[in-house]
Each structure stands twice: as C-alpha cells, then as structure tokens.
C-alpha cells in the first residue's frame, strides 16, 4: 500500500469536527478541541496525519494515533482511487440518452434559460422527417455494435413542449412502432413544461402518462400564477414534480421548498449554470453569500421538529441537488463520473449539430455539425473533443467520490473556457454542500437516530453509515 495515496480531510465547522476518509467515504466525529488547528480543512495522507499527531502529546491525540496504527495494520486505509474516469474518447461506446431539440420556441424568456444564446444565433427547426433521420441511425448504431443498454430519447428540451406538442406525439407514435425491431428498450421522456398554456389534449396525455415536471421562474409572477392555476387541471394520481433554480443570490431556501408543496408532490432545487453577464452571476462574492444561505438552510432543517423534518424529506424530489448529495453520503455511493454527457449521452439541436448536452451547442469546441445525417461520423469527431478530467486536480480532491468531477457546462460558462480544468466556483459550491450535509447527517445519527432511520426508510435508501461515528469507539471493534 502506498501510504501517500490515502486521503483524509479533517473538516471543521463551528464547534464540530469530522475526519473523512475520502477513499471509503467513511467519516468519524472527532473532538474538535483536541485537534491541532493546523490540521483543520487540510487534505492529509496517512503519513502526514500520523506525523502531525505524533508532534502533539494530548491524550486524545495519543489514543487517535494508536487507533490509526491499529486500523493501518488491518490495511483499513486504502489508497484513494483515482475516481474520475478516463474518457474513452476515441472508442465507440454505447449511447443511452439522446436529447433531440427540434426548435427553440418558447412563450417565456427566463433569465436562466440554457437555450438563450442559441436563440440569438438561429431559429431553424427540425421537422418530423429530420428527427426520424437522426433517431434511426442511432438505434441502428446500437444494434450493429450489440449494445444492450436501454436508450432514452428526450424531445424538446430547449423549447416549450406544449407549443410543439403535435410533433412530440408524432415522434412518440413513430418510436412506439419501431420499438419491437430492437432488442434493447427504448424510452421516450417528456421534458419539463412551464405550464403557461395547457390544452385539453396535453392534460389528457399527462393524465395518462401520470408524470409531470414543471420548471418555474420564481421571479415571474405571471408564470407563478399560471402554474398554480393550471396544475389543478391534472388528475390527483399524476406525480407532479417542480424544478426551481438555485441562483447565486437565492434567499430563504427552506421557505422556497415549501412554497409550492401543496400543489406538487416533489420539489427539486438545482443550481443554474449561467454566465458572468447573467442577472445573478456566480461571482466570488455572490458565492460567499450563497454559501451562507446554504448553511442557514441546513441549520433550519436541524431546528425542525421530527414531523416537519420528515415531511421535508418526503417532499424533496429525486433530482434535487441537496438530496442527491444526501443520498450519496448516506449510501457511500462513489461517483466515478459526474455525467454521461459526451460519453453515453448527446444532444442534437435544431441547427443539426451534436453536442454533449443540450446546454452546450454554442461552444464550438464541443459541438459538431451533422452533415448528410451521418450521425456516426459526427459522433466520432465529437468524442475526440471531450476533455479527460482524470489528470486534473479532481483526481486528488476530497469530494471526488461525491461529486464525480466537473460539469463541462459549468466550466464553459464560468471559466476562461479552459475545458481541462474544473471551475473553482462550482468546486467551492459542491464542497460546501458536501461538508454541510456531512455535519447534518452526523448530527441526525448522533442525536435523532430513530428519525434518521425513518428518513432512510421513506427515501428507500441503504444506510452504509451504520457504524460507530466516534473514531475511537469505531476502532475499538477492531482492537
């Protein structure tokens, strides 16, 4: 074992202290007053940790040292696996998700819209024949290469679907007809809607589909009113999801979760990736305030009584940013890659260009024109452009297992367009959520174990943190 490759982080916040083993994603509570301040919020390996502790002679640290030695003997501390997967740019790999965006039509102009720049550049549209000519070669590519994973098509991610619903229905019917020709499963996903206008036909479709996702701009009062008004048109048994953007100046996050809770089954808050010239840019100063708001939100959660906290966990949606980190920490899930965009997922826009995701077609270095409907050729060219984050600072980062590496869209939007380095603002934002969530979970396990069990059960999670959180007590098991 290479001692230098083990990776620890002593995370200190207010009067609490955690030791995180980045490899196993196991963490323990430490006694903050006995830990030298120089060790706080530092990335440490076993060698450095042992050496620093050796220099100190308080009894808590001596015990800690003995226990680290004990666990070392058992080879407990494994080297940090370089979790960010190498990108096989040149190899053909399976395609599991395709976004086809026939148009950029919308009846709103949300400040955070990912199609904003594209809309300025072109107003071209794809018709049914164009879409068929891109879908079929993709299915045949999978068939020829014997790829067996299912594939999902999302149609109309950059438009308001209700404006183009007839086209969507035609595509659905066409996919339903050809499904049987392929051994792998083919799914069609409905994108979110803004609910500004809903026809009877759309309502009937959703009532039958039983799933609805609405995206809302909280600052657009007209939209808020329309959403509240139109949501009533859908049957009670339709699962209703609401997506709300987290921007850099968001306030009172907890209240936002509950503002629409009587109308929707699940609420998901997700950060929006916007440029410096946006209404709420991700500047360093905004980020500082945003982190304070996140801390305030998690503090608020801890102040809730059991019933309200359980209700909160029942209401947060599956795509909620905080919920995903919460799950990942409790289940010790290792994210080997942040996103399948550019690897197994691609987006095709109305100008017939292919890019890793629907948000990226305007960045020339990450999009390729599809000539003569030759998808395979365009795909090969695009795959060569996708960066490999394995060799960046992500490979030694203490949250790499939780985060999985950078999002290309964050990098393009926030940085100097140097695709090969993660963006510091995104990193800081993610680190803050991971750290705060670690403390929240630690608090729940220590002080409200029964409630924590109920939350795990409600969210159908597997608890992989069911060991003694006190490091010395944990070590006792192995003594």
């Amino acid at each position, binding site marked *: 074992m290479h001692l230098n490759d083990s990776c620890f982080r002593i995370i200190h916040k207010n009067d609490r202290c955690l030791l995180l083993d980045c490899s*196993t994603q196991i963490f323990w509570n430490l006694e903050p007053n006995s830990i030298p301040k120089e060790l706080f919020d530092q990335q440490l390996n076993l060698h450095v940790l042992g050496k620093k502790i050796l220099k100190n002679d308080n009894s808590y640290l001596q015990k800690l040292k003995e226990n680290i030695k004990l666990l070392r003997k058992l*080879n407990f501390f494994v080297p940090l696996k370089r979790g960010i997967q190498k990108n096989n740019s040149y190899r053909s790999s399976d395609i599991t998700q395709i976004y086809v965006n026939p148009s950029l039509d919308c009846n709103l102009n949300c400040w955070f819209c990912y199609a904003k720049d594209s809309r300025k550049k072109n107003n071209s549209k794809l018709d049914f024949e164009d879409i068929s000519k891109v879908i079929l070669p993709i299915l045949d590519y999978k068939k020829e290469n014997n790829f067996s994973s299912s594939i999902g098509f999302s149609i109309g991610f950059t438009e308001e679907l209700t404006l183009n619903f007839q086209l969507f229905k035609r595509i659905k019917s066409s996919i339903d007809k050809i499904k049987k020709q392929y051994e792998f499963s083919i799914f069609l996903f409905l994108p979110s809607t803004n609910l500004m206008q809903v026809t009877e036909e759309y309502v009937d479709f959703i009532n039958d589909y039983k799933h609805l996702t609405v995206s809302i701009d909280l600052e657009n009062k007209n939209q808020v009113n329309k959403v509240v008004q139109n949501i009533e048109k859908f049957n009670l048994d339709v699962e209703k999801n609401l997506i709300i953007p987290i921007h850099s100046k968001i306030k009172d996050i907890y209240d936002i979760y509950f503002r629409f809770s009587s109308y929707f089954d699940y609420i998901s808050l997700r950060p929006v990736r916007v440029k410096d010239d946006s209404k709420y840019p991700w500047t360093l100063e905004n980020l500082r305030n945003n982190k304070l708001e996140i801390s305030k939100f998690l503090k608020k959660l801890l102040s809730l009584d059991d019933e309200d906290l359980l209700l909160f966990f029942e209401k947060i949606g599956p795509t909620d*940013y905080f919920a995903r980190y919460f799950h990942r920490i409790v289940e010790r899930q*290792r*994210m*080997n890659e942040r*996103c399948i965009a550019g690897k197994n997922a691609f987006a095709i826009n109305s100008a017939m260009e292919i890019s890793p995701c629907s948000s990226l077609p305007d960045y020339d270095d990450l999009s390729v024109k599809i000539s003569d409907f030759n998808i395979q050729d365009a795909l090969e060219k695009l795959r060569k452009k996708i960066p490999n984050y394995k060799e960046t600072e992500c490979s030694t980062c203490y949250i790499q297992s939780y985060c999985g590496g950078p999002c290309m869209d964050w990098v393009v939007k926030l940085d100097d367009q140097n695709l090969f380095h993660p963006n510091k603002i995104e990193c800081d934002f993610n680190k803050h959520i991971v750290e705060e969530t670690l403390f929240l979970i630690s608090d729940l396990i220590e002080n409200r174990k029964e409630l924590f069990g109920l939350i795990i059960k409600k969210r159908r999670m597997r608890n992989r943190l069911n060991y003694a959180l006190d490091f010395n007590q944990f070590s006792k098991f192995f003594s």
Partner: protein
Amino acid sequence: MSEREQCGDYEIYLDNEDWWVIKNLISGTILGKFLKKEDALDKIAAFLQSDDERTESESVC
C-alpha cells in the same frame, strides 16, 4: 471484545465450534468463518472498504 459485536452491516461472533463467524445483518447470510479473530476483523475491514454496489453514475446537473 464481547462474543457478538456489530460494525456497519456486519456482525462477528464466536460459534459453538470456536469459529469466528461474519454475518451480513441485512441479508442474514454468513459471509465467512475464521479460525483467528484477526482474520475475521481483517475481512470486515475489507467489506467496509469494498466498492461493491457503491458505484453510481447518475448525473448531477
């Protein structure tokens, strides 16, 4: 150590035939029997570190 202790999803105990047994409490299955307690502990440490079923690739955006 007492004769039956738990760490994570795993329990370790000494059976009637003097084997140190590791049991997965979730599945209820016996994962191994060891003559020496150290070997059983070593195995539990390995289970806790294991990547099995821990990989996730769902994107966060």
